[in-house]
């Protein structure tokens, strides 16, 4: 047990928590922005996977990590548009559209990977690049704290910066107000002249951008190559993080950190004598517990203000 405690309170563990929180946080913010406008984006997993591949392929093709990131983001935007068109114009159930995107992504990325690399497992044969790591000047020199907070991938800092940006967008801009109104009551929004479809298009695009950065982080930061199904359910965990974070950017940062810690714990506890399967279950089991806690809290609140059916 002492070994466990020593692991958990080490600087390297906390460093890995932040590292593993990054993709979940980005995807959870992507889930938040659509959810606030009343659309549930469960295609995040697939969007992340596709952008992870797009980033690797483009960075190898153009010998530039930044162009790789740009192409990953374009991929995310394209998928956001596809989702928006299918759900808002063709009136397909958005959950089914999300499922379709996820199903397409796990096979489609393998198809593209095989067509380009002749390999179905990973992209080792491509000379892809990673986004740079950043040493923060002053904080980096502080003992312990510096080794936890400094030296992360650029995309990690972008993820935490996004928390602030999304907060700014949602609460301090006219667009954010419209997004929240559409999510609260689309009919009321329509009646005061807000174009609901346009707002939902916008949030799905923003969601695509955030999820694609998360995907690019997986293949160009967390790892230095693409491998099949590398997102491993993080897009789904993000949905739970969003729910548990009570729909605010800061809350979501907290819940994402919890899931990041669970993920890091799963990686670190594998050295111990517990069957590895139970350790691997931790993030997923915790997600279910979190979902229940969130639902119970929400129901209580609804009862209090009397809108419960």
């Amino acid at each position, binding site marked *: 047990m002492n070994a466990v405690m020593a692991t958990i309170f080490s600087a390297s563990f906390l460093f890995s928590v932040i590292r593993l929180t990054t993709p979940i946080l980005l995807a959870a913010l992507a889930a938040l922005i659509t959810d606030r406008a009343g659309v*549930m984006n*469960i295609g995040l997993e697939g969007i992340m996977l596709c952008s992870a591949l797009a980033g690797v392929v483009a960075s190898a093709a153009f010998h530039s990590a930044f162009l790789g990131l740009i192409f990953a983001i374009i991929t995310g935007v394209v998928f956001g548009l*596809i989702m928006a068109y*299918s759900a808002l*114009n*063709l*009136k*397909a*159930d958005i*959950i*089914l*559209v999300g*499922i*379709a*995107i996820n*199903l*397409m992504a*796990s*096979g*489609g990325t*393998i*198809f593209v990977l*095989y*067509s380009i690399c002749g390999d*179905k497992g990973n992209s080792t044969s491509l000379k892809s690049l990673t986004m740079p790591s950043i040493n923060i000047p002053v904080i980096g020199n502080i003992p312990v704290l510096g080794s936890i907070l400094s030296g992360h991938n650029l995309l990690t800092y972008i993820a935490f910066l996004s928390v602030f940006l999304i907060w700014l967008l949602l609460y301090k801009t006219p667009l954010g107000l419209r997004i929240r109104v559409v999510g609260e009551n689309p009919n009321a929004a329509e009646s005061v002249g807000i174009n609901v479809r346009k707002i939902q298009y916008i949030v799905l695009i923003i969601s695509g951008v955030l999820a694609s950065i998360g995907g690019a982080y997986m293949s160009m930061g967390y790892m230095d190559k693409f491998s099949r199904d590398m997102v491993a*359910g993080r897009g*789904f*965990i993000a*949905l*739970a993080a969003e*729910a548990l974070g009570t729909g605010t950017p800061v809350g979501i940062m907290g819940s994402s950190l919890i899931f990041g810690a669970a993920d890091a714990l799963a990686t670190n506890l594998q050295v111990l004598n517990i*069957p590895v*399967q*139970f350790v*691997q*279950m931790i993030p*997923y*089991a915790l*997600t*279910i517990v979190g*979902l*229940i806690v*969130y*639902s*119970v809290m*929400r*129901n209580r609140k609804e009862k209090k203000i009397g809108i419960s059916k």
Partner: protein
Amino acid sequence: MKNKQSYSSKTIENRFEIFRVIVAIGISLLVALLLIMFASKQPLNALKWFLAGPIMTMRNFGNVLELFIPLTFGGLSIAVMFQCNQFNMAAEGSFFLGGLGAAMIAVGVKMPSVIHAVVALLAGALFGVVLCLIPAILKVKWKANEVVSSLMLNYIALFFGSYILQYMLMDPDAGYIASHSFPKSARLAVIIPKTGVHMGIFIAIVMVVLTYLFLYRTKWGYAIRITGQNENFAKYSGIGVGSTIILSQIAGGALAGMGGATQVLGMYTRFSWVSLPGYGFDGIIISILAKNNPKFIPLAAFFLAYLRVGADIMSRRSDVAPEVVSIIQAIIVVLIAGKMFLDTYKHKMIVKNSQRQVKEEA
């Protein structure tokens, strides 16, 4: 009043649905065609194997029928749950656990043949029920989103199964991660020689009929469909919505679990699944293709099995990866689920028909 030229709007709508499905399939195949052209150095060769491969030899066609069995189960399972408007994805995990449960009975207990297989199938169904029940209970009791909880449960089911396999069922002499081999008494016999097509195909057909009767000829099925279409209406007409949701997930879980059991007992001699088999997710595609109606599930399952086997043959005979099918599937799902897809055209047809009717009556 009515003659051959004019139909009721309802008939037009029904016919139009079939037309819409065909157009959706056509468009997706066209996209696949373009992708193959793009990815292959000999696209015509690849296409030949893709489209005609499955009917070229009896063995290949046998492969289609083999795949038809689990896909039918997957489709039925999802259809029952989707009819109740529950997007429970745990069918995937239930399929896996169903296979595991059947393997545990097959390896763990001695019984006379037939009975052994039946007990193993029921055990599989029970395992499936347990998993699919969890998201349903969370939904009914706390309104917890079933999509998220069921997706998480799939991972938990996988790790649980891999634990059981590694610590309880594993045969150290197998040479790979696999259970001890199943005794003959528990296995489902092959019915078409030189292929792997087994008794499970009959079980699947029987289940199609039973599921159809359950959904469309019993009061429970009626309650499920009404709850799925309009929960408030169901509530006001005195249907117990909570118990109906739970019932539909029990039925769905049982079908998925039994599907997993059938697959494991029919196709393999040992249990060796170390990842989720995917038939639960395939069930979503099939169910949407079949409009959630058990009547059309076998057709949709056959279609998808044909595509998969065709793609597989193509990948062995050419330079195209079989995963191209996943792109076809996604397009089909989106176009069929899209209520407005080709809607203006439908509208025009109905208007034209009504105008004609008015003219005839005048």
